[in-house]
């Protein structure tokens, strides 16, 4: 097989080392960065909705902000679940415990924020 420039050892075709080099970081090993991105998105969502009810309480009642925060948290959680599960399917890696723990933690955090944060 003809490989891109920089790959292969000259006439001997592709080796498994070449394939690994072309792949780079494998998707099933990206659970950490996906999890960090999900938590960052969730915190940003809290920041955005909180800006609404702290700075514009006349237009954005706290209840509306919490409603938006909960809906967006659900959307983000589904995306997080899809990302990790799709990236790990077909491999022996299994991060169900991490997914369950993170989503449970976010769910508890969402409930606490919705109960105690606001104006």
């Amino acid at each position: 097989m003809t490989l891109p420039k920089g790959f292969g050892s000259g006439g001997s075709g592709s080796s498994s080392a070449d394939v690994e080099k072309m792949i780079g970081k494998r998707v099933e090993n990206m659970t950490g960065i996906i999890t960090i991105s999900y938590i960052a998105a969730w915190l940003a969502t809290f920041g955005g909705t909180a800006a609404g009810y702290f700075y514009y309480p006349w237009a954005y009642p706290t209840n509306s902000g919490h409603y938006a925060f909960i809906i967006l948290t659900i959307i983000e959680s589904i995306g997080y679940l899809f990302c990790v599960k799709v990236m790990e399917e077909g491999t022996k890696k299994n991060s169900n415990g991490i997914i369950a723990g993170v989503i449970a933690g976010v769910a508890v955090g969402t409930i606490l924020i919705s109960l105690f944060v606001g104006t």
Partner: protein
Amino acid sequence: MAQMPALIPKEVEIQRLKKIWLIVIAMGSVAASVEVDNFVDGSLHQTSIRDSAFTPAHWWLYTHFVALPLGWGSAAIYDRKVPVLRGPNNSMNTGLKMTILGYLATMFTIGVNEMWHFWFVEEIFAVPNHWMFNMGVVVAFIGALAYVVRVYARLVELGAETPGENPYVAEMYKMALEGKLYSRSIP
């Protein structure tokens, strides 16, 4: 569509398609978020007719309409590493092109919208300055559907995904693989 020879090893292609899939899922979440904000912004404008550009409902809308073309643009940059996803004359995939153009339209409409509201304060859904928001999103959704099905169908072809059991869905994947899903002449 002429079947392209495998220019990269199968395992490499599967990994690259899945990295594209990650962007697609993220962009899908952002698009879902925009849909929620349609209701938030709409309900706000039913009470306060026109406020300003700088309200949370507008930040939410506008940041997403900037994030979407940039995010899909990053998909287009990475997309070049998967030969089978090339479009006509080795250009960008047609579905991806439509998605980016659609969301670029919404991004430019942010400016059009603000200019309009500088003079006219009404916030009726059907005013002309809102048309391109809606048309842009529709074009982007059509393109994204074509692109997503193409990526998924290729993953099915490579054996990394299980094809749909519903015969109608299975037929759709088959047509996508043959390049007949949205055009019989444009790959």
